[in-house]
């Protein structure tokens, strides 16, 4: 990991506007390994951090297709191959009556992959994360907005990052221990 011995430097702000402003400034300064912590989703922050489109829709699409195929072939397999019953010569593969279960399993597997995919892409559940070492971080789930410059950043040096964050009118700047 880093030779800095810390996870990063974190600044606290008291409004979403201040945080977005600071994030834009940090990007402009050249920092790339940034993360912001907020009590609710802020659309402008996603742009300010240049977060790329995530792959979740693709995962959900794959889950949905898999669910649909499972649903249909489960019924086809049972009604046609495994347990064919001839009732007055009616077709075994009566697909219109298989549509509903196909649909339900499509939704089921797509939803499961949405949730599991979201957790996987976020790396959750995560029992430990260094940001929780900052004493005031518990306010990130209440009413405070945090910006963290991580030590992985090639431009990172603790004193420089502290000084830079200090110029953005934060409430407080603190180091994040590992």
């Amino acid at each position, binding site marked *: 990991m880093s030779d800095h011995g810390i996870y990063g430097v974190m600044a606290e702000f008291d409004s979403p506007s201040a945080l977005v402003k600071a994030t834009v400034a940090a990007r402009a300064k050249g920092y790339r390994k940034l993360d912001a912590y907020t*009590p609710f989703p802020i659309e402008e922050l996603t742009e300010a951090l240049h977060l790329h489109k995530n792959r979740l829709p693709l995962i959900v699409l794959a889950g949905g297709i898999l669910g649909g195929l499972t649903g249909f072939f489960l019924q086809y397999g049972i009604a046609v191959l495994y347990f064919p019953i001839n009732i007055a010569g009616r077709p075994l593969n009566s697909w219109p009556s298989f549509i*509903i279960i196909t649909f339900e399993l499509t939704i089921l597997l797509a939803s499961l992959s949405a949730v599991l995919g979201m957790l996987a892409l976020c790396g959750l559940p995560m029992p430990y994360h260094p940001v*929780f070492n900052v004493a005031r971080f518990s306010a990130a789930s209440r009413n405070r907005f945090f910006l963290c410059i991580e030590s992985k950043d090639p431009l990172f040096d603790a004193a420089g990052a502290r000084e830079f964050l200090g110029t953005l009118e934060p409430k407080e700047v603190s180091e994040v221990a590992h």
Partner: protein
Amino acid sequence: MADDQQIVLEKPAPGEIIAPGYTFGTITDQIASVVLTKRTPLFWFAAFGLGGALLMLFLMAVTVLMAKGVGVWGIRTPVMWGFAITNFVWWIGIGHAGTLISAILLLLNQRWRNSINRFAEAMTLFAVACAGMFPLLHMGRPWLFYWMLPYPNTMAIEPQFRSPLVWDVFAVSTYATVSLLFWFVGLMPDLATLRDRTKNPIGRTIYGILAMGWRGSAHHWSIYETASLLLAGLATPLVLSVHTVVSFDFTIAIVPGWHSTFFPPYFVAGAIYSGFAMVLALAIPLRSVYGLQGLITDKHLDNCGKIMLGTGWIVAYAYLLELFAAWYGGNTYEQAAFWHRMTGPYAIQYWSLVACNILLLQILWFKKVRSSPTLLFLSSIVVLAGMWLERYMIIVSSLAQDFVPSSWGIFQGTRWDWATYLGTIGLFLFLFFLFVRALPMISIFEVRTLLPQAKVQKEAKS
């Protein structure tokens, strides 16, 4: 944090969905304090106690049912569905409002939903749990419920996939699973708030495990928002399909009074109608007991009232269309079925449901009524009763008097029918008030986004 410790509230202006004077901090504190306080209001004990008592009645009714069989209910040939399926359809319908609020109104960008979606989704979950009891108990041998699922077995039997009853198994279990997932995903950031706010170490551990280490990272929020939208997009067709499939249980059969093509939209509208009635019946007492009038404002009640009025009219239209189709279709049995409904042994129920669902509904046209919580509460109870009668009518009267008069029979609910029904109301109240005590009943993070200060100012963006 002394700057925003005090909750200074004015009465919200009419038409506003949140009272002025709230800050991110006070919203968090107010909603979290319902859970984190040591003082529980007397109302909670009363409601939870009532739920618990009725739940005991349910357990007793189920014990008797197991010991003696489904004969303790009033179901006799020809009416084999009776209370059980009536209650099933009623409860499933109630659940629909929760998904409508959480998914469809999210996609339609109706921001007022943010303060009522959480408990409405919880309502969905518990209503589906209550609904699920009835088909299971009605089977007579509930411990063999897994025979309904396709699994490799040595009996060489598999479900009949061409039967709407099997479709129902898949529709309802998918609905329950997806509702649970959606609810849990919505809870994650709020569980993190509770984890950070609680002073109780056991509570912190439990909320901490459930929050899965959520830390509000911007990277996570962007994925989270995608997931919410996708789940909403998936839940929307799902919720419409569930009551459609429930209505197929009837329409696919050739029983007069059931065999019609407009049942799906009629059932879905009825479901949303009764569901919003339940939302109001829960929201109105909760907001006054917990002093949440600043978050669940009169505007919310007004909107729910309007949705009830709209869906109520769809239901009224369906009643009329049903009669018209029977007359215009020229089918003697269909005509007889509706004539029996209006004049036969169940005439009282029929005319009461018309009174509850159509006539009394018309008071919701008046702004005065929609802005009076008491009147809204009473009308929602009337609608809930009316919708139960509607399901009872459809199921019982059609089965009681079908094609051949010699096979007719009359259904009467027994005390065990009533005990099971009241028992599931107990189960619902019990679960719902446990939820109110242990989890935030209003989505904290979504309400934060309603505040004017949540908007990022223009000059900050570039």
